[in-house]
């Protein structure tokens, strides 16, 4: 009897289990599907022979004639060309100044010279001795007659009144580009070149190219009232490398050029990026571009001086002052079309500044966080951050943690030894953790103003929540403080005598 009951119980259990399994894992449904699949297989096996049929794809001769092949090929070509235009990079901008100069060099015909009266080197007047390194070819040959008159009343006089006419007699390449160097325009070749000999290439009248240029273009030598543009002060601390290491002619043409200021390429951008190709990548290809370089009038020269300045990176002004020269008003953002805040006003009104702005020399000013040439992060930040009010900050490579320790937000309780991690704590409870690492993490910017604030610790006066500005009402005490923002009512904290606001 007992055995029977136990058997019955086991049977019931198995049955119950089967029903449960049947329900939870929906075996019925699966069985049904299996039946359908099997049916399909059987059906396809039965009808396999008729699965494929021949398809008629022949084209009649008449049809072929109607197709205008030449038209098709023309269309194809034009579309291909368009594609090629898109794919092919634009011709690189290289300066081939040396080639140009080579063409300009005249070849002297010695036979022509022989006909003239040759003056031997030892017979030259004393003022030409000792001879210098580079000699003008007619001078070296002793063919003084090419330029000077020997038959007239006063021997030694020039055969022509205008010097340029004599020069252009041999140097036949006329300077015909858009802008001419003033001495070239006036035909004063001998202002720069010595017609006989020099120790410097190109028969220059000075000991180097730069010194020759500076003999006229030094800002110090001229009165301040003259146009500033044409004069440079090369005595300043930071100098543009090409000028120091090579010469002015790295960027400028000596005689004539198609670009303003006798530049070899467009001064606003192309010329600079010809060398600075690392910035070129940023400026042209980054996701977020700085209007200051991309859409401004003077492009690179908006912030940089191409010759020499007092400031690092050849900036025209102090790093922060450079930025504020544009951001002293609300500026339209290229990023989203919104208006960027008047940063100068913000900094003027709020005395507590973020360290990189406050300690410009050590930290680098605005460009410590923003990349002025463009970036793939919003607000041209050098590293990523979040625009959202709520954000998970833990284990994310956010920008703030480049300088501020991540422990600030990850340690829930702080031992006395670690007190330097954060001052925002109630006893040993880390209130940063509570605000940032809890279920709803809040962005640093919810409470802190990353630029400047009236309050200590860069606490904001207003936090922006969905377009509404709520005051934080932060009050600091000796060992703590209190906040009464929109998020909660007035809560106090104290590092020494905890107020117990862990909940």
């Amino acid at each position: 009897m007992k055995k029977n009951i136990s058997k019955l119980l086991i049977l019931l259990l198995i049955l119950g289990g089967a029903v449960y399994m049947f329900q939870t894992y929906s075996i019925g449904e699966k069985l049904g599907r299996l039946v359908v699949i099997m049916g399909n297989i059987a059906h396809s096996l039965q009808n396999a022979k008729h699965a494929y049929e021949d398809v008629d794809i022949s084209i009649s001769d008449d049809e072929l004639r109607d197709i205008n092949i030449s038209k098709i090929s023309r269309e194809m070509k034009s579309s291909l060309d368009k594609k090629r235009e898109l794919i092919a990079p634009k011709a690189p901008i290289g300066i081939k100044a040396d080639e140009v100069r080579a063409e300009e060099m005249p070849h002297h015909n010695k036979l022509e010279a022989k006909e003239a009266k040759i003056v031997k080197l030892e017979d030259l007047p004393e003022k030409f001795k000792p001879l210098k390194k580079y000699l003008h070819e007619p001078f070296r040959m002793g063919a003084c007659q090419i330029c000077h008159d020997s038959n007239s009343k006063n021997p030694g006089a020039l055969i022509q009144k205008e010097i340029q006419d004599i020069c252009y007699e041999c140097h036949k390449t006329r300077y015909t580009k858009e802008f001419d160097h003033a001495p070239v325009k006036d035909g004063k070749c001998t202002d720069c070149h010595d017609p006989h000999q020099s120790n410097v290439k190109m028969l220059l009248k000075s000991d180097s190219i730069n010194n020759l240029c500076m003999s006229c273009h030094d800002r110090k030598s001229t009165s301040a009232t003259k146009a500033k543009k044409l004069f440079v002060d090369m005595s300043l601390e930071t100098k543009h490398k090409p000028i120091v290491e090579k010469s002015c002619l790295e960027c400028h043409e000596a005689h004539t050029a198609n670009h303003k200021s006798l530049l070899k390429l467009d001064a606003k951008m192309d010329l600079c990026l010809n060398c600075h190709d690392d910035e070129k990548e940023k400026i042209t290809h980054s996701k977020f571009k700085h209007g200051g370089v991309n859409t401004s009038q003077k492009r690179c020269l908006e912030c940089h001086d191409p010759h020499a300045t007092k400031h690092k990176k050849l900036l025209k002004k102090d790093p922060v002052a450079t930025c504020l020269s544009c951001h002293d008003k609300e500026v339209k953002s290229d990023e989203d079309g919104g208006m960027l805040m008047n940063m100068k006003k913000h900094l003027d009104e709020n005395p507590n500044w973020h360290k990189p702005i406050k300690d410009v020399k050590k930290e680098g000013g605005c460009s410590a966080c923003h990349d002025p040439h463009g970036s793939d992060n919003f607000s041209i930040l050098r590293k990523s951050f979040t625009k959202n009010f709520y954000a998970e900050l833990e284990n994310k490579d956010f920008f703030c943690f480049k300088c501020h320790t991540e422990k600030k937000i990850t340690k829930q309780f702080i031992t006395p030894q670690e007190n330097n991690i954060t001052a925002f704590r109630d006893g040993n409870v880390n209130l940063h953790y509570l605000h940032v690492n809890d279920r709803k993490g809040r962005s640093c910017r919810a409470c802190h103003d990353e630029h400047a604030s009236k309050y200590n610790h860069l606490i904001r006066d207003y936090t922006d929540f969905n377009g509404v500005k709520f005051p934080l009402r932060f009050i600091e005490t000796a060992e703590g403080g209190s906040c009464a923002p929109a998020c909660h009512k007035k809560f106090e904290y104290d590092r020494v005598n905890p107020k117990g606001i862990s909940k």
Partner: protein
Amino acid sequence: MKSCTYKKIILFITLFSLSLFAGQTAALKVVNPSQASISEENIVSFVVEADSASVDSVVITTDTNEAFNIEINPKRSHYCKSINLHFGQNSIKVVGYKKNAVVKEESRDVFLTSKVDKEYRYPPQKYNKIYFHNEENEKICASCHDMKVNEVQGIAFEDITKSNCYGCHKNVTKEKHGHAPAVNWLCTSCHNGKVGIYNQTDKDKTKYSVPDPIGEICFSCHKKNKEEWSKKQFHHEPADSGRCNKCHNSHSSQSEFYLRKSAWELCTGCHKDKIEGMHVVKTFGQKPHPTYGVKDPSRAGKELSCISCHNPHVSNAPSLLQSSTVFGLCSRCHKK
């Protein structure tokens, strides 16, 4: 000549008596609320007009025997007092005294409605809704109160007591959990004077009406909810029709999430069949699964309630369950 002066004297006397009659203020008059009015907030402002010549003190007594004494002085004509209400009918007496003798007695019946309790949701027909903020009433108040809205759109008050609304309405935000726009006195962000499809009758009656349904205003801040909810399959009716304020008190509340009552009480207010009887599985011990009164393991520090298993707004599971599988639901608390 004589008849002329006679006529003049009669004219003078009649004019004088008329002016006396007109100039004579009532000894005591309750300006607000009017008799048989409906209140939606648990506080009503009594505005009493009293003449110091005939009344020297006014006592307002509620039906719970709370009494408030107002001293009448000759410099003022109107006096205000906020009176707490309980749900249903409140009979409030206003009595004017002169040297401890009753001069005049008035009474007001005010019905406090509830958005949750069916008992108090529909007041008897004799009651009418109070519309306070109209030109006529505001003229009376303007002698003492600044009746203009001094709120800057989108910027909260640094000092909330500077808000012109604060003085009379401060009681609406006194509860433990305060809703940010309310406790920062950004009143006009909801009280925009517009009406919705459910409160067309309020149109043009008050300056600060709130549209019903209020949903769109809520979603202007709670954007994420709108996004997420629209993707879900099942919706709770009040949430779906945008009547958030049915369950939530948009000013302040004693309960979490600004609920008008604790979650369990709130739900069972409508779903009365769930109060008793067999809700959820019957276990071997013949006891049903508890729905309240024990700790909720899925929400640390909170008590078990309907919202432990049900999502009060939206869900992809039938019965608005928090999880679409039985295992997923139970394992929220019963871990291993």
